Structures are given as C-alpha cells and as structure tokens.
C-alpha cells in the first residue's frame, strides 16, 4: 500500500493513472459507438438498445443499476484523468522557465501536440452532449427513451450536426496519440512510430469517431435529400 501511495506521487504513477482511466474511456466509447450504429437498423433497434441498457441486470441491481455503475466508473475515471493531466501539465510548464526562441518538431505529430487542448474541447463537448441527449435539458422536445426521434430532432439542425462531426475529429486526434501512448505508459513498447502496433492503435482511434459521426452525417444527408 505504501508502494502504491508513493507511486501515485511520481510522474510515472500519474501517467499510469491517466493511461488506465483513458483506457476505460476508450473501451466505453467503443461500446457506445457500437450502440449508436443501431440507429441504422431503425427506431425500434436503437430505442430497444437504450431500454436494454436500463433493464440489463435489473433483477440483481435494480432498474438502471448497471447503467449507474458504469456512469460512476466513468465519472471517477474522467475526474482522475483530467486531474492528472492538469498536474502533469503544470509540471511540464514549470520545467522550462526560459523557452527556446524557436521550436522545431522532429517526432511529435499534430495529434500528440494538441492533447491538452483536445481534452479541453472534449470536456466542453461532454457537458453539451449529456445536456442534449441524456437529460434533454438542452434539447427542445426531448422525449425520454425515444432515442431515434431525439437524434433526428437534434441533428435536423445542421449547425449542431457540424459541431458534433467536428468534435469527433477532435476525439480522433486525442485518441490517435492517446491509444498509442496508453500502452507505452503501461510499459508495453509501442514504438517505433508507424510500426504495425502503432497503425493498429490508429485504426481504432479513427474508426470509433468515424462510427459516431455516421449518425449526424446521415441525418444531414437525409435532410438534404428530403427523405
């Protein structure tokens, strides 16, 4: 226990916490994206999926029990993730009081260099997203349990659809570095860059946000084609 406590105080310990909590979120967004694809099977499929998420295991933990368990794990993970990101970022800023007059990058790519800003955008997005599609406080005409209808309602506004698509690009960038980096932080070498291991991480990082983006994209297209 002593070991684990002082582990948390090290820069590596904090990074490992970021990796585990980031990894939990990656698993969650994969499942979430899979669920969203049921949109393309029609209203019954996706509304049924939402219903299933609430009733799953209710004999044991009650209605929405599992859902709340998952939500708690996600919130705790996110708080830890952001908190560690903040602490480590501050250490990084403090470690170079005098900046270089010019900076040239040899290895770091755009997605790696935008991790902190990407995180900030994701945080803002999460608040808006939950307000619109979970609680409905930010969506006029929201109906609990009618996921299909709510999605059509939300994305019939092209600006909101564009915002969601943009945010999925932001997520793809965060994950493009994040998933690859996560394994490295946990001690499994994923270098050199552009190796097969790196490419596999990138595949997941792009496929998941793309899957999410398909829903707003197709609703916008349906609107354009008047179907």
């Amino acid at each position: 226990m002593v070991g684990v406590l002082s582990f948390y105080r090290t820069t590596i310990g904090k990074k490992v916490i970021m990796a585990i909590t980031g990894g939990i979120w990656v698993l969650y967004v994969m499942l979430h994206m899979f669920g969203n694809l049921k949109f393309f099977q029609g209203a019954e499929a996706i509304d049924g999926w939402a219903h299933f998420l609430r009733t799953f295991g209710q004999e044991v933990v009650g209605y929405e029990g599992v859902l709340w368990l998952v939500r708690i794990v996600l919130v705790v993970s996110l708080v830890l993730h952001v908190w560690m990101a903040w602490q480590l970022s501050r250490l990084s800023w403090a470690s170079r009081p005098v900046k270089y007059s010019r900076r040239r990058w040899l290895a770091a790519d755009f997605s790696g260099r935008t991790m902190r800003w990407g995180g900030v955008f994701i945080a803002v997005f999460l608040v808006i997203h939950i307000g619109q599609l979970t609680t409905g406080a930010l969506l006029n005409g929201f109906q609990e349990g009618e996921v299909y209808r709510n999605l059509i309602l939300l994305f019939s506004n092209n600006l909101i659809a564009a915002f969601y698509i943009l945010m999925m690009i932001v997520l793809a960038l965060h994950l493009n570095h994040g998933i690859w980096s996560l394994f490295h932080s946990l001690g499994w070498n994923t270098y050199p860059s552009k190796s097969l291991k790196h490419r596999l991480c990138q595949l997941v990082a792009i496929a998941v946000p793309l899957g999410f983006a398909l829903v707003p994209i197709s609703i916008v297209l349906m609107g354009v084609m008047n179907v």
Partner: protein
Amino acid sequence: MNLTLNVWRQPNANAPGRFVTYPVNDISPDMSFLEMLDIVNEGIVHQGEDPIAFDSDCREGICGICGIVINGIPHGGKASTTCQLYMRHFREGETLTLEPFRARPFPVLKDLIVDRTALDRIMSAGGFISASVGSAPDGNDMLVPKNNAEAAMNYAVCIGCGACAAACPNGSAMLFTGAKVAHMAELPQGQPERYQRVVAMLSEHDELGFGSCTNHGECSAVCPAHIPMSAIARINRELTQAALRGYSSATA
C-alpha cells in the same frame, strides 16, 4: 561558406541573457561545428571581447559534454553530438540560432554552457550496482544470455549528454533515466537492487524538477546514442512493478 550566427550570450547564471548576431565568413564545409565556433571566437577575442562560452572535451562524440541547441534542435538534428556536426550539414548563407539546453534542472552557467549536475544526481540515486570490491571476479563466472547482453548494451551506450531533456517539450529526462534503469534491469548483476533502483532514480528525477513524459519521441529523435523509446516503456513497467511489490521512495 558564409553564415550568420545568432548566439545566446549570458555572462553568468544570474545575469539576464540576450541574442547577439555574428557574421561568419570563409568557413570550410569540412570544418566541424565546434571548429567553426573556435574561429568565430578568435575573431571575437581579436576585438577584445569575451569569446562565446561552450562546452567541449573529446570532440569525438564520446564524452557527451558538448551540447548546443541549433535552430531549435539539441545537437542540430543529425542525431549526432554537436561536436560531430560538420559545416557541410548547413546551407550557404543560413542563419543559425544557438541556444543553451533549456530545462529548469539545467541552469545556464555562461552563454551556451549549462550545469548538468542533475544527471549525476539521478545516477547517484541508484544508477550503479553495489558490489563488494574484493579481488577481481573471474571472467564469465556470471553468464549473461546474449539477448540480454545486447539489449543492455543498446541502453548502456547513453553518453549522458542531456539532449533528451533539452528536446523534450515537457523538459523530462525520462529517456536518460529509462536507459540507465533498463540497462541494469537487463543484467543479472542488476537484479538485487532492481526495484529500489527505479524508485530511487525516478524520485530523484522528479524532485529535480524534470517534467513527465508524453511519449512524443522528440528525445529519441535527437539522441546521439540512438536510445530507443522502449527505454521509456521499460522504466514505466519497472516502476509499476516496483510499486506492486511494495517498494516506495521511503524504502529505496
């Protein structure tokens, strides 16, 4: 060749510094970078001014003392030491900005010279193997599997120049510390102190004010010894295992 140098001049650790421009003419492309600086300094001394202070010793890429940030890249971006750079690596008429390594644990002493005692402090914390020094042991009385020997050697080639920390956007010396930890974790002689070592060295690294790694790979890209990023994955794993085994900075 003709060039323009834009050099960080700082009289001492406490004085403010600034960039000073020096035109450089008639340089042979076959000169080394440090020979070019020697010639520039002759001119400066001729004018009765203080020459540009920079570190060098072996000038063979072995000792690791030389280190200048050239146009934003420690050692100039050829994955060699600064002393192994040649003027043919640069373009005619180019402007070169020369700065010292910048990291909080590397205070500037003068001009381009920084104090890298911090790296020695990390080594003193655990970068060694305790052994009773009686008579010399027989050669080969402790066998090292070939794979381990080669892996250890790939990490042992670190010359401790500090370019990794200078290149890191987070001012982290994780490549250096990782190389030392990984080197000894590969060898049988390193096993008894394996977990104390990683805890002690990393704690020292953190206490000195180096930042944390974000796995960008800038360090490895400038490393004159080509230490791979696997050194960092390795130190992450070693520290995690040490924590799971109950080692802490108090016991190290």
